[in-house]
C-alpha cells in the first residue's frame, strides 16, 4: 500500500503508540544465508523449524521501539545471478533493504556492492540500506576484512553489522537499527499518487515512492 492507500491504514487507538508497517527486501548472492538470517530473526531458530513454516520467502515480524511498533514485512529475493534483472520488481516500494554477503567469500562482497549501487540508483530515494556480513562465526575462514566493510559502509551511508545466523550474533540488532532509522512520521503518507501497479517489466520503474506507514493517526 505504498501509494494510493497509504492513508487508509489503521487508526489504531492512540494509547499504545503508532504502528508502522515497512517492506524490507533481502538481497544477496544465493547461499550467503539470507533466509537463515530472517528465520533467526523471526523464529529465533537456526536449523530446526516448526511445521508451520512452509517457506522462508515471505515472513513478518514486529519489533517494539520506545514509542512505536514496527512491523516488518520481509521479502526474500532469489540470489542467483540469472534472476538479477528481476530485482527491481521486488525492491519497488520497499522502505528498507538488507544486503547480505558471506564474510568467507570475497565474491559475495563484490556482489553486495553492486546491489548497494543499484539500490542507491534505482530504489526509492529514502530507502534505508543495511549491509550484513553473515557467517561471522566462521571468522577463521574470513576472506573479507571487517575494516574494509566498515569503511565501505561509511562511504555509502549504510548501516553495517557482521552477523551470524548460527549464533544469532547481531541478528536482532541489525533489524532494530533499521527500525530506528526508518522515518516514522507521516511524511510518507503524503504519497504522491503514482500508479499503484506492479509493472511487468523489470525496467518499468515508474514508482519511486518510499513511504509507508500505516501509522496515520
Amino acid at each position: 500500500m505504498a501509494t494510493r492507500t497509504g492513508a487508509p491504514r489503521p487508526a489504531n487507538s492512540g494509547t499504545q503508540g503508532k504502528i508502522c508497517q515497512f517492506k524490507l527486501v533481502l538481497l544477496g548472492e544465493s547461499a550467503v544465508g539470507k533466509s537463515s538470517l530472517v528465520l533467526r530473526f523471526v523464529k529465533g531458530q537456526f536449523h530446526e523449524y516448526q511445521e508451520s513454516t512452509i517457506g522462508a520467502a515471505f515472513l513478518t515480524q514486529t519489533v517494539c521501539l520506545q514509542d512505536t511498533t514496527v512491523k516488518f514485512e520481509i521479502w526474500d529475493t532469489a540470489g542467483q545471478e540469472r534472476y538479477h534483472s528481476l530485482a527491481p520488481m521486488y525492491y519497488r516500494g520497499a522502505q528498507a533493504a538488507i544486503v547480505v554477503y558471506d564474510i568467507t567469500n570475497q565474491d559475495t562482497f563484490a556482489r553486495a556492492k553492486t546491489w548497494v549501487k543499484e539500490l542507491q540508483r534505482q530504489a526509492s530515494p529514502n530507502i534505508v540500506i543495511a549491509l550484513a556480513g553473515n557467517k561471522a562465526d566462521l571468522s577463521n575462514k574470513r576472506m573479507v576484512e571487517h575494516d574494509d566493510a566498515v569503511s565501505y559502509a561509511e562511504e555509502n551511508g549504510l548501516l553495517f553489522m557482521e552477523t551470524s545466523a548460527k549464533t544469532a550474533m547481531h541478528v536482532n540488532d541489525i533489524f532494530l537499527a533499521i527500525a530506528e532509522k526508518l522515518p516514522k512520521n507521516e511524511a510518507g503518507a503524503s504519497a504522491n499518487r503514482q500508479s499503484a501497479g506492479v509493472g511487468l517489466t523489470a525496467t518499468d520503474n515508474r514508482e519511486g515512492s518510499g513511504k509507508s506507514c500505516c501509522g496515520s493517526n
Partner: protein
Amino acid sequence: MERNASQSNSRRGIHVDQSELMCKNGCGFYGNSQWQGYCSKCWRDIYTQNQQKLQQQIDLDHEYAMKLQKEEDNQHPPPESIIPSSNPSFKQFEDKRVHTKGFRGRGFKKFFSPSSEQTTVSPLVAKTKSPPTRKRQQSFESKRASKDFVDFIVAFQEPAAKDVLKKCKEFMDKLVSNKENSIDEKSDMVQDFYQVMAERLMSHPNFKSYTYEEDRNKIMDNIEKFIMTRIYRDVFCNDQTDDEIEDLKVQTRIRNLHWITAAMLDANVDTSKPFVSECADKAITAIIEMDSKRAPQDKLTCVTRCSKSVFEAIRHSKPDDTPASADDYLPALIYIILKANPPLLKSNIRYITRFSNPIHIMSGEDAYYFTNLCCAVSFIENEETGLNASSLSLTEIEFGAYMRGEMPTSEKSELKERELCAGLQLMYKNLNDLASLHERTDRLFDEAMQMKKGIQRHSLHVKEQVEKMLDETAIDIRSRSSSALDEDLFDAGLLPPPLLPTVAHR
C-alpha cells in the same frame, strides 16, 4: 422378416437408443447433451425459469434493501449534509448526488439492474440520447455477485450500508456513462474510487462504528469484488489493448520451452516422489484456475494457493528439512508455470495490476506471491536477460537445437518416466523388458535360421564335394567295377567253348 430383426438388433448394438436422443421433455424433438438432453426450445424455457428463480431471490433481498433505505429516509435528513465538504474529490460526488436525487426512491433497484437498463433511466446518459437498447441479459456471475453483495449489505448497519450502496451505484453509473474511456482511464477511475471509499470509511460519521481495520478492509473487499465482477467483461483482455497478442506470445513461448526440466532451472522439484508430484499438480491446477475467477482478490488467492503448493513441493524434495527460501521458490515457480502454461496469463496479470485494490498487491503475502508471478513471467518471456541459453547453462547451439526440437529427447523421456505413477512405471518397465525379450527372441530365431542355412549349405557343400570327387575318380571306379574276375573272359570269347557232353562209345 428375420433378416430385418437381426439388422435392427445389430444396429442397437452400435447406435445409441433412439429414446436417448430425444428431448427429455418429450416434445418430440431431438435433444442435445450441451443442453442437458433437452431440445433448444425446452432448454431455453428451463434456463429462463432457473434464472427467474435466482432473480426472485435477488429481488427479495432488494426489497429488504429498499425498505432499509426508505426507513432511513424517513428517520434522518439526507446524510450529505453531514459530509465535510472540504475534500475536493468528494465534490464531484456531491454534485452528482444532487443530480440523481429525484430518483432516490429507485436507487437500489436501479443499482442492481443490468447496466443497459440503467442507461435508459439515468439522467446522465439520457442526455446523450442513446436509443433504448434491447435489455441486456445479466451474466450468471454478475447475478451471483449482486446477490453476494446484497447479502453482505443486508448484514450491515443501516447508515453505513446505505452509504456504501449509494456510492457504488454512483460509481457504476459514472463508469457506464464513460464507456469509451481507455482502459487506463478506467483503471484510474476504479483506483480513485477505492481511495475515495477508503478515506470515507476512515473519516465519515456513517462509519463511526467501524473502528477496526479488518472490518473496513472487509467492506473494501466486498466493494471491489462487486464492482469488478460487474465490469469484468468490459475491462478484461480488452480489445483496445494488446493483451490478447501478448497472451498468445507468452503461450507460444512457453510451448516452445516444453523441453525444460526442473534440473535445468535448478528447481528443487523432484517429481519422482509421488507426494511432490501431487503438490506440483495442485500448484498447476491453482494457477490455471486463476483465469476462471473474476474478482482481482479471488485471482490473487489462486496465485497464493499455487505458491503454497510450490513450497510444499520444495519442502518434500529437499534432502534436509530447511524451509524453502526465495532461492528455491522462484525457480520452482517458473518451472510450474512452464508446465502449466496458464491461459490468458498476461491479461490476468495486467487486469490484477490495473484493477486490484493496491492494498493487495503492494503489501502482504498475496502481494509477495503476485510479485513473484510477475517476475517469473517476465523471466520466461524475456529472451535477452531472462530465459536463454546462458541462464540454463546450455550453449547457444544446444539451446537452439532444443528450441527447434532437434535435440535428442533422452532427458525428456527420462523425465516423463519420472512423472508417471508407480503402476504406469511398472507397466513401462514390463513393456521395456518385453521389447528386449522380443528382440532377443528375434535374434535367437535369426541365429537359428542362419544355423539352419549353414547346415544346409554345409550338406550341399559336402554333397558337391562328394560328387566332384566322384567325378574326378569316375574312371577308376569304373575300371574297378569292370574288373570282375571273369568279365574279360566272358566278353572276349577267348575261352574255348565249354565242353559239351558227348557219347564216347556205342
